């Protein structure tokens, strides 16, 4: 398998960029991740229940998978349950089909939850210790477990395979100092670089194409003080400036704690920016921002980080948020058939799921794929190695890991920065990258500036 | 017989204050006197249900009210105006009087009763919108007694109504209490002012160490001086 891995070098990266065309150049130009070669070697096809469970083996073994998440953390419990439920749904399907075909046995999967109680450090460590001490438990999935991701050092010490789906910046910060020290820890979310760079060029492109129009190329950026919100806000300040915009105002707000945006909106209404960017991503806060913005909207495009992806966002904004732009990295690409299928089945069982629902399903399938490749689940180091060397198609795009950071690779040919716009009746539509686009950008209804007729 | 207290024992926690004390209040005005801390107030609190007696019985209007809740005892028409006249410091006189008629028996009649109270204590009518804690000592005492009257009592128990008042006010208040007695309301009064008690009551009990030390049924039979001597002598 090692031999099959794509070569990472700056040269191939440049070549690939030349070949990829304008859109890709825009998307990749300043990403932190190192995109790997593509096109020449296609990723492995996405595993299916059938492909993972078809074999003659009769011998059945049972293994445990841990879900480490803030199950009792108020608003966070929804994410925790999503990833857990989705992984269990995948496991149920695999179990029902007889179990995952492994080296010389079929493996059926059961689950064990580790509650990090609203991300309290002592609860994280207690849950980790309990899960890692279980001799039958061979893999742990997490949406995010702590605020710092400090648990990945514990996972590395315990040699426990761990796939985490949040806090890529924190993960990168810890792992990049000593990547070989974390052979079992992998981040299913890619580098957040794309969040910082891909938005301004895309907006410019769509203004030129006549899809969008702004009264002035001015932007007001509100960031939250957590690593995710801060990094993206800081990155966007740079990339908007580079893209010819002027940043007329910035504000940092405490994460998850703003309940009233009116004073902030008062400033915005004085400045009348052509675009407003909000990277404080907690859904409750974001929905409130929109509700108070739309009371007296300014003539501005509105970008809101992450929040619109959660299923109840439309309800919380009283179905008025159509026109809001947001993007996702490492999220499920909704236009793909497998995503639609998984989301539909998930919704039937548990109600509409958020970002982490398809992610949880993917986690289980990726893990099963490694078992299917003949790795003994009990051999944690081999399992870590297998996951790190995967190059496989998933509902979120092509999944392969950067050995320097252990993050999933980012880029239009790997996990793309997928741009969405909220559409009428509470749906959301992919508007970029073109390969997955379901429609083009539409000028938001509250704006008085309208694009010139095409 | 309106009120019959039969061999009541009561106290606070493990401290026993009343020792099988018995008193009777017939259709008359009865006074309690004696040194401080010997159980007069505790006796009233026990009768009105604030303290549950450990032994003995309280009979009022032919009903055994021993151990019943204060509100049901008030409902029977036995009203206790406690010592320390700032009843409800942050309420207006009007509010305090209105609350005096809280019991179901008195509530429907509260307007007419209040007229009577105001005619008895015209000062209260003037001060009706004032908060109780801004009243003078005498006015507070009037408000407290007035609130007690609002409960339409058959028997009114007053705990030291003249405590700390100047002689002139004391006389004024004593007059009012006489007027109340004249309307046929029974009275059970604690006071340090022996002169007032002697002028008001038909019967006096001297309470010492939780017991009845002296029962003065016939006022003429006892010398004023004797009472005073006994009273101050034991207090010293």
């Amino acid at each position: 398998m090692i031999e099959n891995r794509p070569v990472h070098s700056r040269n191939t990266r440049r070549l690939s960029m030349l070949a990829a065309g304008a859109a890709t150049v825009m998307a990749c130009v300043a990403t932190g991740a190192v995109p790997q070669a593509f096109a020449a070697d296609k990723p492995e096809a996405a595993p299916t229940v059938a492909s993972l469970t078809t074999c003659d083996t009769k011998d059945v073994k049972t293994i445990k998978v841990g879900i480490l998440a803030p199950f009792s953390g108020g608003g966070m419990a929804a994410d925790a349950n999503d990833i857990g439920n989705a992984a269990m749904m995948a496991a149920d399907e695999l179990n029902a089909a007889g179990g995952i075909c492994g080296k010389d046995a079929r493996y059926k999967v059961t689950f064990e939850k580790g509650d990090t109680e609203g991300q309290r450090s002592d609860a994280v460590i207690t849950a980790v210790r309990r899960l890692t001490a279980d001799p039958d438990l061979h893999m742990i999935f997490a949406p995010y477990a702590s605020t710092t991701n400090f648990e990945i050092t514990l996972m590395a010490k315990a040699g426990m395979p761990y796939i985490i789906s949040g806090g890529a910046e924190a993960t990168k910060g810890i792992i990049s100092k000593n990547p070989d020290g974390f052979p079992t820890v992998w981040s299913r979310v890619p580098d957040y670089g794309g969040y910082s760079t891909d938005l301004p060029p895309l907006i410019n492109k769509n203004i030129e194409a006549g899809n969008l129009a702004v009264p002035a190329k001015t932007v007001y950026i509100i960031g939250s003080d957590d690593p995710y919100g801060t990094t993206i806000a800081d990155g966007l300040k740079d990339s908007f400036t580079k893209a010819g915009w002027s940043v007329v105002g910035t504000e940092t707000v405490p994460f998850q704690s703003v309940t009233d945006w009116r004073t902030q909106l008062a400033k915005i209404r004085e400045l009348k920016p052509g675009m407003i960017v909000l990277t404080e991503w907690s859904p409750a806060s974001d929905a409130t921002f929109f509700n108070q913005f739309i009371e007296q909207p300014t003539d501005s495009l509105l970008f809101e980080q992450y929040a619109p992806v959660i299923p109840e966002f439309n309800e919380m904004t009283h179905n008025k948020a159509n026109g809001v732009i947001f993007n996702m990295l490492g999220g499920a690409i909704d236009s793909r058939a497998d995503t639609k299928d998984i989301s539909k089945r998930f919704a039937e069982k548990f109600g509409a799921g958020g970002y982490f629902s398809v992610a949880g399903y993917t986690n289980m399938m990726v893990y099963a794929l490694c078992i299917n490749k003949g790795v003994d689940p009990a051999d944690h180091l081999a399992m870590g190695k297998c996951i790190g060397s995967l190059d496989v198609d998933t509902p979120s795009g092509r999944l392969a890991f950067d050995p320097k950071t252990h993050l999933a690779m980012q880029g239009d040919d790997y996990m793309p920065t997928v741009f969405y716009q909220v559409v009428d009746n509470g749906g959301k539509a992919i508007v970029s990258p073109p390969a997955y686009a379901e429609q083009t950008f539409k000028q938001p209804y509250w704006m008085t500036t309208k694009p010139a007729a095409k | 017989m309106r009120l019959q207290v039969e061999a009541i024992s009561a106290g606070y926690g493990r401290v026993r204050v009343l020792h099988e004390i018995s008193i009777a209040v017939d259709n008359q005005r009865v006074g309690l006197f004696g040194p401080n801390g010997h159980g007069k107030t505790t006796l009233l609190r026990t009768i009105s249900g604030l303290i549950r007696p450990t032994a003995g019985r309280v009979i009022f209007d032919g009903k055994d009210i021993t151990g019943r809740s204060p509100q049901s005892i008030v409902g029977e028409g036995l009203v206790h105006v406690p010592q320390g006249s700032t009843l409800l410091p942050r309420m207006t006189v009007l509010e305090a009087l209105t609350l005096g008629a809280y019991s179901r028996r008195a509530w429907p009649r509260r307007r007419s009763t209040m007229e009577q109270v105001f005619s008895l204590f015209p000062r209260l009518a003037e001060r009706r919108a004032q908060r109780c804690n801004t009243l003078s000592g005498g006015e507070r005492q009037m408000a407290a007694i007035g609130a007690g009257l609002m409960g339409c009592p058959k028997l009114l128990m007053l705990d030291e109504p003249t405590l700390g008042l100047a002689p002139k006010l004391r006389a004024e208040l004593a007059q009012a209490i006489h007027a109340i007695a004249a309307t046929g309301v029974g009275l059970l009064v604690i006071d340090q002012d022996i002169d007032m008690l002697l002028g008001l009551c038909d019967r006096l009990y001297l309470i010492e160490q939780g017991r009845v030390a002296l029962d003065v049924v016939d006022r003429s039979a006892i010398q004023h001086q004797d009472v005073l001597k006994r009273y101050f002598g034991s207090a010293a």
Partner: protein
Amino acid sequence: MGAIIVSGLVSGALYALVAAGLSLIWGSLGVFNFAHGVLLMTGAYAAWWISSPDGLGLGLGIGIVGALAFMVVLGLVVYLLLVRPWIGKANAELAVIMTTIAGSIFLQNLILEIFGGRYKTIDQVVTGTVAIGGTTIQAQNLLVIILAPVLLIAMWLFLTRNRTGLAIRAVAQNQDAAQLFGIGVERIYIATFSVSAVLAGVAGILLGGLFNISPDMGTDPLLRAFVVVVFGGLGSLPGTILGAYAIGMIEAFSSYYIGIYWTPVVLFVVLIGVLVVRPTGLMGRPT
């Protein structure tokens, strides 16, 4: 400027509703109800469950009435199970802090267990937007701005005119005297808790319409009400209401002129300053 004042008014109104209930209970029972925030949350869930098509689907009107009726019962239950056994005992204050915290842990997890962690929304009582003071707001905000003072005035009238209301105040001021007036203290305590729970429920329903519903939605309002009652003075209703609007305004002005980021710090510095100068709050009395 208009926007800042409106923002301060909306927050102030909501804080006043929440804090008034807290202050009322402190005033008459001398205990601090840490379950107040969870009562607010439970009220919002009750209204959502009765009204939403995902629940009983009976519509908002029945939802509100049903939820408030439920709050009366819940107030009674909280009182009987978590407060009454400790009243009059030594250290009741501390014990009740703990029992009401325990009660809130219980209710919060119960709600999480029944309804899950996903955000929910209650329909707004009024929809649309209105323009006031040079700023446009959702009509529900205006409802909050108007309804809170109306409810608080109604409460004030209840406490000064109504027989039970007067009795609540009497019990708060002098329990012995109240009993001697024939007031059943027990019944008054229950009434106090129910009134307080209903106020929390109203706040929950309004908050749920303005923002959203989640099992931890009560935490923030409780902490804020905390600041308000300390600021305004415990047990004093006018002080509490004044405190609520003052805190709302301070927050609004500070977040505009100093920034949202430093507003919590500003708030606490002001609070601690007030307490150092006036240890019993702006209008409170010594305990």
